């Protein structure tokens, strides 16, 4: 496994990204936490006060935050990972190591952000007197599947982006649309039944629903949908990896 064999390289590349970010700004780590927090506040205000979303069974801020964090992990990972090979072109041209390390280190630094921002989620649960349960621990396997999904897509997009830089911008556009087709702000039940199949084939929707089930309703996730989500993630991962490895030999020529 690449991760174990090149563990120290991966570690230092990840640290590079994390350190560089907090050194560049005055508030440093706080931005990682503040950004999703304020997004949550704004969304909570609009959807619970202006649009008056009801019948979620849990306070809206907690509900939206449980969807927002995995979504932000997903978009931040992909937008950064897509550019990661281009950004490190100098290294790619000079020295060999498995290139997926560059993509992985980006994802690891975003994982760090994800867990840092999750602290706020726990505080929110305490604030709204929501009980903790053992079901919550299931968020770890869900996160692993989500990570695999993001990793697979990142491998594909980062390699394509070396060929055409537009991939980055094109994907940002797709992400905007994808956001509205994922139940971050709303619940799947708000959607007309005849369109709900979208959520079954959209892995991000599967993951967010699963997170909400284990964290907020204190139950097992919907294993059936999760299995579909996991299968899609695995297929994308293996196909992208094959493509990535095939392209790897010419990365240095085209970068």
């Amino acid at each position, binding site marked *: 496994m690449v991760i174990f064999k090149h563990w*120290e*390289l991966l*570690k*230092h*590349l990840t640290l*590079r990204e994390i*350190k*560089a970010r907090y*050194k*560049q700004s005055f508030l440093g780590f706080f931005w990682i936490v503040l950004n999703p927090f304020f997004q949550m506040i704004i969304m909570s205000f609009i959807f619970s006060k202006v649009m008056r979303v009801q019948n979620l069974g849990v306070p809206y801020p907690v509900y939206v935050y449980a969807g927002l964090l995995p979504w932000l992990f997903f978009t931040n990972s992909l937008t950064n990972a897509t550019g990661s090979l281009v950004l490190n072109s*100098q*290294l*790619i*041209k*000079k*020295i*060999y*190591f498995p290139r997926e390390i560059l993509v992985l280190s980006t994802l690891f630094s975003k994982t760090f952000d994800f867990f840092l921002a999750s602290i706020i989620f726990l505080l929110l649960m305490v604030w709204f007197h929501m009980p903790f349960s053992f079901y919550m621990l299931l968020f770890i396997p869900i996160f692993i599947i989500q990570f695999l999904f993001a990793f697979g897509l990142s491998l594909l997009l980062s390699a394509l982006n070396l*060929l*055409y*830089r*537009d991939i980055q911008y094109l994907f940002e556009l797709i992400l905007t649309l994808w956001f509205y087709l994922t139940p971050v702000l709303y619940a799947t039940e708000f959607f007309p039944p005849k369109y709900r199949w979208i959520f079954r084939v959209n892995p991000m929707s599967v993951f967010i629903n699963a997170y909400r089930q284990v964290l907020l309703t204190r139950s097992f996730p919907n294993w059936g949908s999760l299995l579909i989500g996991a299968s899609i993630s695995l297929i994308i991962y293996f196909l992208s990896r094959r493509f990535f490895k095939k392209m790897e*030999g*010419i*990365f*240095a*020529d*085209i970068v």
Partner: protein
Amino acid sequence: MDPNVIVLKNVEKYFFLQHQKTLKELVQALFKKQKTLEQVHALKSVSFTIQKGESVGIIGRNGAGKSTLLKLIAGVSVPTSGSLTVNGKVVPLIELGAGFHSELTGRENIYLNGVILGLKESYIKSKLKEIIEFSEIEKFIDIPIKYFSSGMQMRLAFSVAVFVDPEILLIDEILAVGDIEFKEKCLKKMEEFKKRGVTIVFVSHSMENVENFCERVIYMKEGKIEFDGDTKRGIDLYLK
């Protein structure tokens, strides 16, 4: 052990030069009927063998295929056809700052650059003092390297690299910057490597360095080997 550490047999390298990197440029080019992809024949049936402990200079004009050759030996690029075998740990002396991050301190960058070159973290830790000493920038080692001059950055990069203990060392114009004193120090270090039996492949436009350092040159011209042999003759042929 096999004394032939680098063996190339009929190596051909083609790559596509992409003239447009964005879709907008591509669409414009298609309308104007400009070239979009250009196939470049970078190496034409290149064969040579380098034995353990040899110091070989690679000379030639820009675009002659020198860097492509180094990329193949370093393993970052693969030959289109032909065979290439490299036995031993290859260490490329990375150009100024390729493995650096400007926001990190000198010390942090030593670790980063070290692991990129394949060193173990514990090894870097044990050699840290020597590395810093060699670089002669002890005073600035804990400030971000964005405040370093390019000469200082080069010193740091070279200092990490010389502690790698390579079997095959690839040097691509790294001595282009830096003051004379440090250059001398680097050349001395490379002499040391040579004595220890390290194989060195040296790409340079400085004929003086090549002549002092290598007993053999490969003169590349338009992707082909024009001459392979005695340094002095090779350089004369190139300068003619």
